[in-house]
């Protein structure tokens, strides 16, 4: 019998190798945990990499207070199950000023996420942060390194990234510099789904279709997840069978109408769909064509 490893086996082995390699040079690593499906896979891989030890770093959730309720529930459950410390950080300035996605547009992402992340990393002195970004997500990410260096002010200079050869990662850094490490860089959306199915990894139920209260705005179907959602005159939430392909702040995340209630059906729908995963995300489109690249230079994950 051939023992040839499948593509999922090889991706898994590579991700585990990356995580263990980080432990050689990192003084205070942390895993960024956004509660989405990519984070779920990354956390699962971390548990595999260090078993029977628990992963030797905490989870960090940079919260905006505007995530879906179901995300907060799964977050707390997974932290407890993995035996890892969970650090939740909310930018105090954004909180004090009441920054929200309805009134503040791009400032919402900038303050809660970009600034919040930088503050949290500085506050705890984390020198390495694992992130769940994938190269197939977006054009500028296709060129991202697995070990991505950030200056002391968290800036990203695409021209100064280190070449990565074989599976050798150079994780040496000067004081003040930090590294973002993307262990699932080489996974595609289909790989993620298939691995979730194979390994039976818990994910937020919002990925599956169910009747949910929604309104249609600017071509997006938004879910009215709590009573902070300001309805416009004449706007009435309509119950639709919807699910989400990616999860973020609920007022910024578009749902798709769907009947897919099982993992197989979700994957089926994904394979037959004609739009990309990030299409329901508002964030990529602010500032035109090179928007994600610009955000990264500013320090967004």
């Amino acid at each position, binding site marked *: 019998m051939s023992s*040839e490893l*499948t593509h999922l086996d090889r991706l898994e*082995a590579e991700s585990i190798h990356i995580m263990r390699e980080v432990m050689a040079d990192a003084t205070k690593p942390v895993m960024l945990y956004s509660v989405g499906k990519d984070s779920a896979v990354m956390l699962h891989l971390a548990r595999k990499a260090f078993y029977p030890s628990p992963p030797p770093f905490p989870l960090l959730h940079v919260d905006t207070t505007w995530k879906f309720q179901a995300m907060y529930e799964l977050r707390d459950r997974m932290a407890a199950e993995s035996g890892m410390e969970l650090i939740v950080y909310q930018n105090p300035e954004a909180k004090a000023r009441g920054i929200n996605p309805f009134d503040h547009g791009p400032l919402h992402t900038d303050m809660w996420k970009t600034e919040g992340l930088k503050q949290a990393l500085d506050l705890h002195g984390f020198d390495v942060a694992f992130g769940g970004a994938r190269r197939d997500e977006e054009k500028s990410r296709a*060129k991202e390194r697995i070990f991505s260096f950030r200056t002391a002010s968290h800036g990203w200079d695409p021209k100064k990234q280190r*070449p990565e050869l074989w599976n050798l990662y*150079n994780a040496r850094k000067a004081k003040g510099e930090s590294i973002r490490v993307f262990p699932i860089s080489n996974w595609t959306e289909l790989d993620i789904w298939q691995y979730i199915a194979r390994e039976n990894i818990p994910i937020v139920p919002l990925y599956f279709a169910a009747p949910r209260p929604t309104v249609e705005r600017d071509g997006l179907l938004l879910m009215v997840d709590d009573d902070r959602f300001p309805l416009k005159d004449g706007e009435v939430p309509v119950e639709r069978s919807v699910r989400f392909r990616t999860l973020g702040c609920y007022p910024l995340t578009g749902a798709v109408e769907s009947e897919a209630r099982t993992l197989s059906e979700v*994957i*089926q729908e994904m394979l037959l769909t004609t739009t990309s995963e990030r*299409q329901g995300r508002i964030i990529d489109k602010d500032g035109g064509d*090179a928007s994600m690249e610009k955000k990264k230079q500013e320090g967004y994950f």
Partner: protein
Amino acid sequence: MTDPVYVTDALIAEDIDAYLAGHEKKSLLRFITCGSVDDGKSTLIGRLLYDSKMIFEDQLAALEADSKRVGTQGQEIDFALLVDGLAAEREQGITIDVAYRFFTTEKRKFIVADTPGHEQYTRNMVTGASTADLAVILIDARKGVLTQTRRHSFLAHLIGIKHIILAVNKMDLVDYDKAVFDRITLAYRAFASEIGITNFTAIPISGFKGDNITALSDNTPWFKGPALIEHLENVEVGSAADEAKPFRLPVQWVNRPNLDFRGFSGQLASGRVRPGDAVRILPSGKTTTVDRIVTLDGDLDQAVAGQSVTLTLADEVDCSRGDVIAAADAPPEAADQFEATLVWMADEAMIAGRAYWLKLATQSVSATVQAPKYEINVNTLDHLAAKTLELNGIGVVELSTDKPITFEAYADNRTLGGFILIDKLTNATVAAGMLHFSLRRAQNVHWQATDIDRDMRANLKNQRPALLWFTGLSGSGKSTIANLVEKKLHRMNRHSFLLDGDNVRHGLNRDLGFTEADRIENIRRVGEVAKLMSDAGLIVITAFISPFRAEREMVRGMLPEGEFLEIFIDTPLAEAEKRDVKGLYKKARAGQLKNFTGIDSPYEAPENPEIRIDTTAMTPEEAADLIIDRLLG
């Protein structure tokens, strides 16, 4: 055109579970595409993504709009725009870095490294090739085999890629002429055999029109196949060959959740392992057997090359990160001197004699590189004499490490033969290297064990050996203070020796000048002499400008912990220049002295010296007393 290589949506729609079961078993092939700027590389990759339905409607809409705005294909879709990622590149219309793309066919999943084709980016191509099983070399049918084609092929071969596809592109622009294709294939074959590529597959294609990509094209009835995708799907690669080799596991991390469990985590570089197998830990050479292969999903009865696992061993043997667990009856060698090929990747040229960090598998050691035996011109493949390697330079060098590393020739094992060099100050990855073999002299020149050791010699002198390393600008007061220190030690019946910079240059180092490389060699020799003297039990005092941090750290590394005391004679440049005891600053300012530290050659001040002497705040006498206090106190 119906494509048998891509699943019809019908199967997914009808029986998703059957589809997924099949998909889960797919293998993975990683390949690179290399071509010159206008060979249509991005167009080909865009085409592969497009055909495999990796492009969605929203992306397609953006693509159509972009194509009309900035595309180079008139009103038609410009596939290249799909893959040219960064904003700067899109404006320039060139690809400037390595990008990774993903697509899937019915048989395989693919990861494509898209590597740039122009002159200055050897670095990126080597990076992309290092993880690839196969290379697609693109040629523009109108242009034939170019200098760049030769370069790309050489690099692919150098990095050890065994499968080469020669994709003769833009066949639509030469009317699908068989004669053109045959002529190019023949020319390529002649060149390929010259550099040792014995086998390649030539395919006439049009990335733009889609000929011979997924299926054989009616436009080339004379071509019997395979089509590009068909070949990519069927080429035999990967783990089988690695599994047949002896077992090696470089240890990444020691897993100690509690006192009862001690596991060794790592990814198998080659071979296979089962519980009960006899293994040898390197470099110690201790043998034991594998007890368990531990994973979250339960213990395994075997693990194979490529898998990441955690092993427990039957005996309590020393084993930590950097060690290699290997088949007991076929262990790899350890050595500290090698011949290797280096690809230089940094803007700053290689400095012979300087110590760099060398990372190979999970081992990190300090390594110095000799001046290249020769540099290889990647265009002509000529061997040229060279003193150094510049960015994108490739050369064959000898290098030595400060302690033995466990290795195999790169040709036998990529993991235990491929390494990177890291600059100790900037932490940049400056080179990629491939080990050829260890040098006999390291193997056969053994340390002669002597019966009287350094402790016995020092005890007889009733002192602890030390190296007082003075560093500072010319004229800062190093020699003056060093001399005072030695006089005081002598009075106290201590056995010492003062090595003075100028004096050493009259004898031992009379063959050295003041270039950066010569200065490094100067310090290396002085370090070695100081080390021998400290082995003799002496308190050694040295007074050298020693301007580079890296070399001072190198000497520190030669001595036992705590015996190297770095003494920074901190005199500001203006003050030293004002004193100008030897009249050297005046000469340097007049341009009569080249490479003078502080004037036209840098001085890198110590960051954490053991002792810092501010000569503007104390007299030489006071400084000498302070140093003696620190040494003996």
